């Protein structure tokens, strides 16, 4: 595929150095010298202290000035005297041992570059800050003529300097097609084209732009540009790549663009929407942005390793998408080129660490990784509030009842005994297979592995080896609202860092610990109820360690409130003081495929090695302290003895209340269960300990760092605290003199790129020293400053760009003076993004299912792609789901839609600030053979046949109007007519082929014809479909 490799579109790779340093012009340090010093010298003489050679820095004026060579006699740079400057001597040297950069570095300077540096020194070696780190300027536009906008004045000045004649304004048809596709991602209808063509009023184009900006499709179109940067995908990524429901965030983006949310707010909400004053559901939802990175659930992964990875991804995304800086280069060491220290990097990272998250998502449940936001509807909220009030009322009533009844718990033993569901005494443990349950009709407990029967606390007990244990179905499926008590005697052999005593859960990190458990952590008892550890759980840990090598009776009771206050630990019948580690359980603790209760072991967790236990008993009730005291002290026989029949009425009232409370809590659980949730940011109270990671390694924490912004970049003063909100405010200051130098420049450049295919800065992801300097620095600053002055108004900026002459020029006839259109002498002629290409096909074929937002859909995709990689299946959504706009197509990171990646869509695994554009035979195959496009072409053909009964020649014009917004030329008409006739002839001879061709995809032309009351000749339709396809493969169709 030789051409394939060669044909890279012009739009993509424009990394020329726009050196203005012709011999006559004075040298501009920022654009001519600094990039050279950075690119060729900084690797060894740059900001990174560790790799710095000869203690020499060439990225800072002060450093160079201060530096001396040869015993302090020779200055490295002597302004005005290249001959006395060691720098020049060394770069011009012929001596291989002296020459800089060293010949084997692959960084050698050309003669012209050496000369440039020499001239710079001779001209005084003037230093300036790197252009993008300088404050935003407010350039005075060159004098404008007539209605010319300042934007055009800046562009035209450059054109005039270079003596390039700009192309004329494009014709009306091209214009409306271009601007409609660019602003809405959809083609104009023939009627719209006609109306615009006929509207000769001076404001016609502005009116058109206003209409398009107000169209609901504008939000969908613009969202696509941000989804790449935000690495939006519908699956977690990494190898298992499970589906996750994050589309509500995508819809938030669509709305934000649609409603023209100012960009400062757009950023602030995404970075810190949970922290803003008056944070609401929407602003919190926006913070899902920081959780869209890949996540893993691969078995055996080290949780902390991946948590570090997630935080790094947030920082990298902030760098690329918002700052245009390659922050990630400073993750392992100081940045080699830009003045970003490794400390700066981890100070940025510290803003993003303080949330209650795990480095692994759950393999065994599909529960949403914490922290999460409940996407609660008004109705749900109302019902929830009601249910919660009901629970509070019943709780109050119950405690009042207990207070009044002068409740003597010991008298209730009989009642409590009735709630017993398991009693395993291990007296018959000698067969090592299972032990009967003393409770009638209740299941036995089985041995897993071979725990050893030993002399227990009371008769026979069991000893464990850390791998083996016992399992039973009893007590294996309680939810948080169901009260329970679990008691047993244990004798630990050692102080365990961690050991599982008992649990109901499928696994530890592989299931986010979902269930309930009793562990020993650093020798202390630790009880928990968990939906998703750590952010949706209750955990209490005993303050004192449990004695080792002696028996203790250990009881855990849970009162059904799901709160830490209701989760109690007793040792030898006495409640022990505990620390509350987590108290934020909200959702179910069931599920994940585990409904057994296990003792002593857990999948991929540390078991109760060398530990012994005995006398396991479970109750479906939270036994009060007095009963537990009896249970622990007097042993099992005592429990059922003391009965007080006189209190039957009181018992009945109590039981009614308890049962109502249970039901009410269950009601809350049911409402919570129906509320969808999404991963978001939720700041934990206080500061999370954040550390620099040596060499970027998760297991090599270094010095402590604080969440603070670098002092060399933008205004750092007046930061009152250190949260993500402060970070967002630092980025989006509007007061003059305090504006961030990068944020507005970066976004203005990116939006410019959306419409021109290339930015004013050709490296949208890198505004650092290694990036390209802007072609139009004044224009960039003008747009950026103006953007902030206009309150970060995105639609206004877009309007400003698309109503310019530069945008409206004809794209035909690029010349050698401006072959890549870097000076904007011509209008843009970029290959449309694949989303627009596919959507245009659907719209032209009248197939587009218009619905803004909602869950992702599964349109046509070749069979077996998901299966061959990961065994998962892809079932296409027939009908509407195959006809939604492309931004709703499900994005599976390990197997993204091939028709889209073939057209240069990135994999969405990491943040990407722009797409390259290539041209390959695979793209031809997609447009020619993909069911989606064949079906759409039939839709177009049907439309032409249905809408017009004119001659074939006139119909061809109609076809072109639909697809290209223009009629055909005589020559084109002739070619297409001849194709039509010949295809018609061939197909007429082969009814089977025609039939096959017409049944590709869902579009039912017969049904459509019927409902219109017309008849369609199948052969004619098939031939017209081929002709439509022909037009949909024209360059003009994909690159308007």
């Amino acid at each position, binding site marked *: 595929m030789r051409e394939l490799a060669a044909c890279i579109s012009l739009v993509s790779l424009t990394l020329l150095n726009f050196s203005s340093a012709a011999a006559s012009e004075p040298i501009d340090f920022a654009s001519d010298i600094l990039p050279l010093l950075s690119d060729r010298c900084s690797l060894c003489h740059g900001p990174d202290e560790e790799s710095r050679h000869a203690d020499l820095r060439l990225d800072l004026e002060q450093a160079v000035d201060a530096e001396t060579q040869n015993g302090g006699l020779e200055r490295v740079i002597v302004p005005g005297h290249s001959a006395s400057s060691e720098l020049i001597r060394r770069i011009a040297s012929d001596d291989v041992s002296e020459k800089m950069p060293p010949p084997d570095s692959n960084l050698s300077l050309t003669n012209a570059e050496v000369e440039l540096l020499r001239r710079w020194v001779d001209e005084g070696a003037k230093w300036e800050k790197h252009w993008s780190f300088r404050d935003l300027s407010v350039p005075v536009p060159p004098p404008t003529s007539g209605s010319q906008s300042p934007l055009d004045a800046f562009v035209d000045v450059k054109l005039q300097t270079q003596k390039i004649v700009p192309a004329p304004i494009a014709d009306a048809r091209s214009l409306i097609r271009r601007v409609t596709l660019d602003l809405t991602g959809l083609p104009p209808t023939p009627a719209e084209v006609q109306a615009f063509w006929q509207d000769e009023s001076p404001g016609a184009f502005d009116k058109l732009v206003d209409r398009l900006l107000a169209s609901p499709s504008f939000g969908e179109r613009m969202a696509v540009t941000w989804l790449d940067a935000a690495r939006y995908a519908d699956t977690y990524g990494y190898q298992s790549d499970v589906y996750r429901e994050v589309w509500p965030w995508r819809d938030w983006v669509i709305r934000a663009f649609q409603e023209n949310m100012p960009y400062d707010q757009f950023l602030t909400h995404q970075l810190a929407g949970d922290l803003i004053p008056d944070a609401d559901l929407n602003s919190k939802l926006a913070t899902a942005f920081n959780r869209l990175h890949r996540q893993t659930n691969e078995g055996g992964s080290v949780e902390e390793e991946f948590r570090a990875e997630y935080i790094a991804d947030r920082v990298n995304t902030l760098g690329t998408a918002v700052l245009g800086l390659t922050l990630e280069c400073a993750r392992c060491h100081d940045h080699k080129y830009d003045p970003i220290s490794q400390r700066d990097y981890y100070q940025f990272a510290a803003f993003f660490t303080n949330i209650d998250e795990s480095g692994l998502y759950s393999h065994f449940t599909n529960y949403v990784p914490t922290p999460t936001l409940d996407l609660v509807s008004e109705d749900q909220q109302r019902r929830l509030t009601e249910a919660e009030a009901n629970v509070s009322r019943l709780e109050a009533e119950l405690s009042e009842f207990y207070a009044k009844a002068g409740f003597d718990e010991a008298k209730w033993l009989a009642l409590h005994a009735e709630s017993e569901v398991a009693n395993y005494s291990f007296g018959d443990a000698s067969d090592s297979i299972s032990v009967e349950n003393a409770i009638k009709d209740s299941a036995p407990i089985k041995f897993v592995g071979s725990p050893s029967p030993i002399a227990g606390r009371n008769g026979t007990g069991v000893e464990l080896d850390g791998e083996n244990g016992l399992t039973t179905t009893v007590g294996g499926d309680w939810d948080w609202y169901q009260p329970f008590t679990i008691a047993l005697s244990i004798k630990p052999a050692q102080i365990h860092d961690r050991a599982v005593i008992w649990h109901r859960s499928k696994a530890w990190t592989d299931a986010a610990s979902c269930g309930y458990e009793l562990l020993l952590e650093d020798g202390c008892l630790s009880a928990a109820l968990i939906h998703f550890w750590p952010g949706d759980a209750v955990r209490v840990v005993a303050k004192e360690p449990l004695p080792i090598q002696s028996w203790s009776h250990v009881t855990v009771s849970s009162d059904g409130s799901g709160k830490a206050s209701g989760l109690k630990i007793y040792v030898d019948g006495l409640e022990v003081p505990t620390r509350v580690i987590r108290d934020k359980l909200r959702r179910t603790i069931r599920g994940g495929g585990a409904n057994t209760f296990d003792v002593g072991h857990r999948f991929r967790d540390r078991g109760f090695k060398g530990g012994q236990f005995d006398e396991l008993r479970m109750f479906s009730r939270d036994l009060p302290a007095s009963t537990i005291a009896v249970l622990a002290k007097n042993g099992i026989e005592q429990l059922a003895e003391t009965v007080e029949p006189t209190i039957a009425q009181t018992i009945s009232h109590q039981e009614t209340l308890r049962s109502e409370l249970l039901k009410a809590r269950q009601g809350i659980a049911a409402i919570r269960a129906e509320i969808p949730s999404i991963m978001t940011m939720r700041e934990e109270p206080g500061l999370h300990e954040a550390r620099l990671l040596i060499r970027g390694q998760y297991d090599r924490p270094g010095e402590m760092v604080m969440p603070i912004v670098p002092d060399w970049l933008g205004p750092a003063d007046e930061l009152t605290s250190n949260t993500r909100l402060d970070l967002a405010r630092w980025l989006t200051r509007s007061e003059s003199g305090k504006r961030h130098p990068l944020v507005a420049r970066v976004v203005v450049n990116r939006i410019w790129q959306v419409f021109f295919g290339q930015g004013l800065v050709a490296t949208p992801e890198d505004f650092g020293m290694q990036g390209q300097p802007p072609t139009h620095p004044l224009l960039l600053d003008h747009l950026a400053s103006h953007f902030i002055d206009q309150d970060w108004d995105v639609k206004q900026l877009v309007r400003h760009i698309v109503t310019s002459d530069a945008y409206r020029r004809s794209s035909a006839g690029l010349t050698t003076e401006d072959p890549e259109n870097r000076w904007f002498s011509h209008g843009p002629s970029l290959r449309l993004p694949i989303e627009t290409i596919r959507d245009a096909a659907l719209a032209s074929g009248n197939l587009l299912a218009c619905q803004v937002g909602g869950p992702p859909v599964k349109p046509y995709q070749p069979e077996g792609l998901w299966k061959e990689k990961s065994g998962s299946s892809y079932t296409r959504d027939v009908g509407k789901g195959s006809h939604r706009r492309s931004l709703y197509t499900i994005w599976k990171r390990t197997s993204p839609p091939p028709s889209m990646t073939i057209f240069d869509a990135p994999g969405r695994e990491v943040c990407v600030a722009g797409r390259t554009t290539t041209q390959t035979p*695979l793209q*031809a195959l997609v447009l020619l053979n993909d069911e989606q496009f064949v079906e759409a072409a039939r839709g177009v053909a049907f439309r032409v046949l249905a809408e017009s009964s004119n001659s074939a020649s006139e119909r061809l014009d109609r076809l072109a109007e639909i697809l290209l917004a223009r009629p055909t030329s005589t020559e084109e008409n002739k070619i297409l007519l001849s194709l039509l006739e010949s295809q018609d002839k*061939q197909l007429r001879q082969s009814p089977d082929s025609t039939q096959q061709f017409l049944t590709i995809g869902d579009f039912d032309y017969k049904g459509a014809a019927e409902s219109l009351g017309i008849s369609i000749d199948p052969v004619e339709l098939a031939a017209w479909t081929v002709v439509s396809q022909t037009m949909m493969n024209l360059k003009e169709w994909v690159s308007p």
Partner: protein
Amino acid sequence: MSPNESLNEQTRRHFFGKSVCGIGTAALGSLLANDLTAGDSNQPLGEGAILDTFHHAPRAKQMISLFMSGGPSQMELWDDKPMLRKMNGQELPDSVRRGQRLTGMSVNQASLPLAGSSFEFSPHGTSGTMVSELLPHTAKIVDDLCVVRSVFTEAINHDPAITFFQTGSQIAGRPSLGAWLSYGLGSINEDLPTFCVMITKNQGGQPLYSRLWGSGFLPSTHQGTQLRAAAAPVLYLNNPDGISRQARREMLDALSSLHEIRARETFDSTINERVAQYELAYRMQASVPEVANLSDEPESTFELYGEAAKTPGTFAANCLMARRLIERGVRFVQLFHQGWDQHGGLPGGIRNQCANTDQASAALVTDLKQRGMLDETLVVWGGEFGRTAYSQGALTADNYGRDHHPRCFSMWLAGGGSKPGTVYGTTDDFSYNILENPVHVHDINATILHLLGIDHKRLTFRHQGRRFRLTDVEGIVVKGLLA
């Protein structure tokens, strides 16, 4: 000129109508694969190559990677450890583990019992290399192999480890080896992709991901093209049902005429590129099925590769396809075979894996050799990491499992200038640590690039302000692996 600048230069040349992609694709004959002989650094590079010349004389001009996804156990295949059999059931000594990290799957195991291999090893070939009884066919070609027993990696989980092997980074977003080769060396055939990928069908196991053959930040032109055992061997290759090749030809002719008109009217010479892409697509519609159609292979081929080679999508069929693609000048063919992740039930599992791969892997090397192609085709076999000396889960008389082990594992190279009949590197008695000649993943990749005529430090792409390369900032060409 930096690589990007020269890429740009090249793009500009296109723009001005230099005929590389012109209609008719004339003057391409001189670049056909058969005209390329290894051993001369001045020989022409492929079409679209970023390099101006090879950095040095290439030993291999093409490559096949047999990627054994999941992490094959070195102790069962290539690294015989009698000590493990002797100490079977005893705890892994701390002096061997040295506190090195384990995965979360076995780190909490109460005991880490050493597991001796159930399989016998014996010396083979004149080199006397010890090969497992599981690989009877590969054992016969051992004198053609350069076995490396001392490869090591940094990652301990599948996704990061396999991504690291393919792209030189554990983090997603970097180009794969094949993409780098396409970018650096370009294409040496007229109508097939430069970089082809095949996955054994219905194999199951640890998932694979398209990033493993992706182009990362390189232009997507360089991403691997998957050939599949399906009605359309390349995605979207087949004309829609009901559209004949003749009808398609007519349509393309009309399309081409329309493009010519437009090119004339707008002076847009890039339209020619588009036409060329459509012509290439049309040619691919014939050339790909031709490669995939094995009916022209004599029965002796199937005797060599095994009957399974007759079933499309099997590893054997893919090996045969690899040879056919290499014959037709495809630069890089990569096979993925899943299922080597034997955490439990290892003896049975690995026996099955070997039964499905041993004969065809050996056949591929033999076949290339018989056809005189092995000298210029580098074949590399291996997975993303090795497996532990201790048993994951219970060790019983006839069953055990092994967890991931990144600290040493085995691979082999054949042909393409690799050193035949050699064993490189030594591990300790437990195959836990490397004793001599460690070979990092970056070293393997540096050596592969070296054999293909590329200095791994000089094939770079500037992205986000930095010159990226496959081997990051590391990698040493391992001289001991070179013939």
